């Protein structure tokens, strides 16, 4: 026996819905949202995913999705459903996440979220109900409104030169390599509806099988906004809308995907790009470097002293040593006062934030930086100071202070420009975290001006020796 009846993924009664009618939807007679809901609920039943489904409702007439679906529900701000869905899916990879959206939501206010979720290939399922109008707010023009279509905001019909053309989201999304499955279907004749049913099931099955991003655009009707009775609305959809929004599969390589992070290979060679960026040029160490404790470093000085580069070198030493590394320059207002600073984290564990509020290593190369940052250094932290430039002395009881005339030494080496690398040498010696040879090899790989490599190496060694052997 075959019975077609209300899917059990709907609540038996819609208790969250206001008013006396707890078994009908809030939708107008003949509204396409009802059909789409029914097919999604049926697919949830048949795939056995109700318990782990999270339905993200949009803003629009379907804002009340949580009245109906007996699963996890979140209602997102207008247009943001795919961003919210991304967060849910990433935090709960076992959940099945549906981003259900209208055309105003998905293709107007939420265009950015829509495209970027697709471009990232999030392992979510997007159901896009395109009814060519803003239903909820009273029938205004949507991005998908047809040329000539009269709406509350286009009383003389949509005009191409004034309002632009109806936007074709399935076509646009199908150009993104990371989108796996993109199809446009319609709530039209029974044949169309059964095709839509199949597409909905496929898009959910893809997610169950971790095959990445699926997008189903469903041409739907808004009899109220269109001011038509229901059968006429379905005729208009079939005769007019499908001309502008052709039905069919726009992309389907989801089946070839081995997992949700599968990405098609783009036609460029990463190595060619890396060649322009020194960071990619070195070979990593065989074994990760062991750190006694993670390093939270702050580098500060005048602009032009190579402070940011010094921090970058440090981060690159860490990267080459297979540590987790972050480098972030400060672009605060103090930059304009001629000072610069950057923060570097090196750690065996993953780094939560690139910011360093409480450094355990501080390198200062001018007086204002000492005044600004000394107090932030943790008790027992190390502070390295260019003693040729900075006049005052830090608190030696609280901190491990190393005074080194870095700029003077750099001058002796050949150019004050390598004072930062003198500091790098001193830092390596002071922290004991890296072998001098290892740092030297890293510098050879990353120093961009080839003619300065030798001078940099000399500066590195001088800084190292100064700390280890007192000069």
């Amino acid at each position, binding site marked *: 026996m075959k019975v077609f009846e209300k899917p059990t993924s709907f609540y038996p009664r819609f208790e969250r819905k206001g008013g006396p009618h707890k078994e009908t939807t809030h939708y107008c007679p003949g509204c396409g949202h*009802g059909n789409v809901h029914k097919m999604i609920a049926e697919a949830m039943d048949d795939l056995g995913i109700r318990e782990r489904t999270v339905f993200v409702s949009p803003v629009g007439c379907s804002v009340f999705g949580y009245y109906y679906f007996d699963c996890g529900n979140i209602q997102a701000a207008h247009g943001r459903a795919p961003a919210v869905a991304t967060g849910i899916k990433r935090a709960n990879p076992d959940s099945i996440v549906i981003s259900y959206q209208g055309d105003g939501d998905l293709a107007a206010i939420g265009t950015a979220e829509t495209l970027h979720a697709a471009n990232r290939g999030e392992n979510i399922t997007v159901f896009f109900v395109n009814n060519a109008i803003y239903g909820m707010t009273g029938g205004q023009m949507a991005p998908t409104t047809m040329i000539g279509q009269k709406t509350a905001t286009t009383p003389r019909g949509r005009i191409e030169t004034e309002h632009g053309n109806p936007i074709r989201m399935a076509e646009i999304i199908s150009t993104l390599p990371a989108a796996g499955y993109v199809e446009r279907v319609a709530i039209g004749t029974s044949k169309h509806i059964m095709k839509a049913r199949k597409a909905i099931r496929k898009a959910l099955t893809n997610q169950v099988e971790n095959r990445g991003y699926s997008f189903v655009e469903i041409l739907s009707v808004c009899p109220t906004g269109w001011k038509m009775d229901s059968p006429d609305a379905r005729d208009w959809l079939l005769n007019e809308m499908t001309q502008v929004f052709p039905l069919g599969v726009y992309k389907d390589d989801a089946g070839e995907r081995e997992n949700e992070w599968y990405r098609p290979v783009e036609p460029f060679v990463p190595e060619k790009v890396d060649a322009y960026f020194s960071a990619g040029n070195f070979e990593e160490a065989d074994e990760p470097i062991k750190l006694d404790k993670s390093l939270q470093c702050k580098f500060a000085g005048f602009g032009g002293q190579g402070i940011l580069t010094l921090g970058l070198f440090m981060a690159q030493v860490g990267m080459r040593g297979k540590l987790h590394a972050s480098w972030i320059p400060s672009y605060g207002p103090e930059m304009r006062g001629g000072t610069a600073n950057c923060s570097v984290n090196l750690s065996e564990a993953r780094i939560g934030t690139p910011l360093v509020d409480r450094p355990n290593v501080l390198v200062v190369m001018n007086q204002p930086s000492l005044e600004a940052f000394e107090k932030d250094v943790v008790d027992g932290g190390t502070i390295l100071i260019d003693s040729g430039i900075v006049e005052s002395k830090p608190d030696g009881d609280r901190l491990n202070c190393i005074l080194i005339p870095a700029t003077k030494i750099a001058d002796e080496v050949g150019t004050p420009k390598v004072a930062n690398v003198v500091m790098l040498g001193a830092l390596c010696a002071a922290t004991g975290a890296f072998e001098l040879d290892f740092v030297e090899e890293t510098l050879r790989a990353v120093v961009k001006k080839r003619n300065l490599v030798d001078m940099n190496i000399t500066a590195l060694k001088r800084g190292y020796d100064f700390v280890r052997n007192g000069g």
Partner: protein
Amino acid sequence: MSETLQKADPFIEIDGELCKGCKLCIDVCPKTVISISDKLNGSSYHPAYYLGHDCTGCGLCFYACPEPAAIRVVKP
């Protein structure tokens, strides 16, 4: 004999109180065995009703109907 045959016939049930009278089920039914009532239901819609015979149990009216629980199709 004829009674058991009749019992085995496919049929639909329309809950007149849950129907919004959109007529989409009528539009899609290949056997034209659904009609619309003259009377109003509690929500002021003219509900659809089954003529009582010749349904094939194809289920098309079920999918054409936007309401979750207005139509139930049984194909024994």
